[in-house]
């Protein structure tokens, strides 16, 4: 029994990916420029992890609005509050995140002030009818700076280790292509968070690291095939080998991306408010990672002039 899906994914596809490389690279360049522009101009909406401060998660069963909560939080006179609605699987109820900025004060004094502010916020929220306090978070100034530092170090370290790994497994021409593709993915994700103003927190960093791993995974599969085909078809022009290899692995690429996306969409829709940002970043990352393996990582090999085994000197 053959199902329709199989026929949608021909085993011998001949899509001319490489022919559109200039268009694809141009598009990527545009996306990256736009991402950097948005990042510089609008910036990222950092979550409580990186911003520091006080946050309370509340659930209401009546028509309490963002405005009501903002008025309440403003009346505490503890800095400019933010109130954000979040998804709730129960349509009768609403979830809100109410946050206050880091409280002024040097060192431990500021940390104490944060706790006092948290208590004040907690008490004020408790007075609202039909409101249930579901959790509080306080991140001190020093800790939030540490988290930013470790978060970005983690991304840097992961990229570096990927570079080392790919360098061991393939020749340098491949590593350049792979790393450019990864940086492409990271910048495009940061750009996406600038455009949508989704909250960027520790979970987003986790998502970016996973995207890096996933995109690398995709790239490696294509590269593996390129290397194999270069050995197999010694006379075929490089562009044709690249195109053939992408097509060879195309149905695998599509299927894996599809199953991963399906799982992530389930997470996005059902997994609850706390995981939505993570799922969103991952969905975008899988799309961009798949795109970059085909349209960035592979065509770049044409520019780095990848060597065929037997013809290269040394190594």
């Amino acid at each position: 029994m053959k199902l329709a899906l199989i026929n949608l994914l021909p085993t011998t596809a001949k899509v001319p990916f490489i022919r559109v490389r200039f268009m694809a690279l141009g598009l990527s360049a545009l996306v990256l420029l736009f991402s950097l522009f948005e990042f510089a101009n609008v910036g990222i909406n950092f979550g409580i992890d990186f911003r520091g401060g006080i946050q309370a998660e509340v659930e209401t069963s009546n028509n309490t609005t963002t405005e009501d909560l903002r008025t309440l939080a403003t009346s505490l006179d503890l800095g400019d509050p933010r109130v954000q609605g979040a998804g709730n699987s129960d349509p009768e109820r609403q979830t809100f995140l109410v946050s206050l900025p880091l409280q002024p004060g040097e060192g431990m004094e500021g940390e104490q002030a944060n706790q006092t502010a948290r208590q004040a916020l907690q008490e004020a929220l408790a007075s609202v009818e039909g409101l249930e306090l579901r959790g509080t978070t306080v991140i001190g100034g020093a800790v939030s700076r540490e988290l930013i530092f470790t978060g970005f170090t983690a991304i840097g370290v992961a990229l570096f280790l990927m570079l080392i790994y790919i360098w061991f497994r393939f020749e340098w021409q491949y590593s350049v292509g792979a790393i450019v593709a990864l940086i492409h993915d990271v910048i495009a994700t940061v750009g996406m968070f600038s455009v949508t103003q989704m909250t960027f927190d520790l979970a987003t960093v986790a998502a970016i690291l996973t995207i890096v791993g996933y995109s690398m995974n995709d790239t490696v599969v294509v590269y593996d095939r390129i290397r194999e085909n270069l050995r197999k078809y010694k006379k075929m022009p490089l562009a044709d080998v690249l195109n053939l290899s992408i097509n060879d692995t195309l149905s695998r690429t599509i299927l894996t991306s599809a199953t991963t996306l399906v799982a992530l969409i389930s997470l996005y829709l059902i997994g609850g408010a706390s995981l939505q940002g993570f799922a969103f970043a991952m969905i975008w990352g899988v799309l961009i990672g798949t795109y970059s393996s085909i349209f960035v990582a592979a065509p770049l090999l044409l520019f780095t002039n990848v060597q065929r085994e037997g013809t290269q000197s040394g190594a």
Partner: protein
Amino acid sequence: MLYFGRWKLLSIILVVLLGILYTVPNMVPEEERYTISDIDGSREARGIWRWLPSRTINLGLDLQGGSHIVFEVDMDEVRTAQLEGLAADSRQTLRNEQLLPRSVSVIGDEVVVLMIRPEQRDQALEQLQTLNGPVTTEFGGPSLAQMYRMAADPNDPGAIRITVTDEQFAAIKNRTLSQAITVIRRRIDGLGTTDPTIARSGEDRVLVQVPGAEDPQEIIDLVGTQAALSFHMVDSTIDPGPNGQARTPPGRTIYPVANTQPVQYLAVETRQLLTGENLTNSNVTTHPSYSGPVVGFRFDTQGALVFGDVTANNRGRQFAIVLDGEIISAPRINEPILGGSGVIGGGYTYETASQLVILLNAGALPATLTPVVQYTVTPSLGHDQIESGKLAIIIGFALVIVFMLAAYGVFGAFSVAALLVNVVLILGGLSGLGMTLTLPGIAGIILTIGMAVDANVLIFERIREESLNGRTPANAIQAGYERALAAILDANVTTFIAAAVLYLLGAGPVRGFAVTLGIGIITSVFTAFVFSRLLAVLWLRGFKPKQLPI
């Protein structure tokens, strides 16, 4: 690739069985698995669970509710206290040798000793070196444990500068943190909550996790209080002034009196007669002189002697009990108290008295602790999060199954079986290794389900290709597994690197994501490459197909 020896087969079955054995306890209610003691809540495995793994997955605080608080020890305060102690010791040492300093003061990170007569400086320096303990070994080499570095100031003929060495300060920090953890543990244990975690976090922080705690303030009050207790004689000849701002002669200190409106002040002798260290046991009790509950305490032998002497010699005077810079009690001595016990009373409720008892019994913290991170989730939110996580896993899994069956038919079924075993191994692994499952951890499981089929897809695509190239089914399967291996390993190593970096550098719940992702990668390589291959081989033997349905 197609041949499985007996031992190989057995070990595959064993791994899968172990996975199942470790997963099953998670589906059986706790009462079925354990006899829970009514007296102390301790658990003992019962029935067949005595012979089987009975442990379940630890749920993170975000899934069971509770408070996660990181306290920072004020190391500046510790350093200052250290330097002040050093200054006092230096003064004493010099006095003992009749070498009179003009001043001994703490300036920044140093103790500066100024001699009245500069020509005494070398002699003073020599005497001060004794504070370092034996500075030279028998052979004249430097001692290993230099506590202080001291030197004559080249620009000031009468000055000596002393600093605490970095090694010594590191040792002090270390000791302070260990002491703090011990005291915190005793205090939290006094609360009687189940399974609290108290652990060191970095150089100067302590992590406290209390499952089930809904209000972090309770824990902050309990842990953030230093509880330094001391006993002093009151000096009623000094008027503390309306705001306690009066100038005091040396050796006298003014403290506010707790629970007074407007705040009253008393001047006391700075010298501590006794401290909290001298207490052996405290409890909540009643006393005829007070209406509410009081805190009863008992001194150790030495404390009882001192207290007996003091009370015998100071009849009619007042003494003060000072807790963290506040006078909590200032009774008048009516008669000598020789039994070594007493009460602190006045204005306590049962709760506040119990809290003080916990603090006194646990002892004082060596320094001030301030919360720098606080994360609290109510049990109801935790419950909702785990339920929605479960649902997301089930639905994600179901959709992936549909996809794989649609794309690969029979082989799709192998990969679904492999995926099922994969999830079982992840859950079993988490239970068996005693790992903690957090909300991001659930995300890691869902992601693994989505990505784990990748290895299967790589293999099946290869098999399909080889089959189209005209190979026999057995040959095609053989070649498919063989050729896909390199790509599978490469691909998984990269994701594993990402998970490892996240685990090593990540903080808090995000680490849980790295754990499930990491375990998931290992199990998915096993299930795709070993388990699904076994299924394919068994199928090949059983059905002997002429053509691959792929």
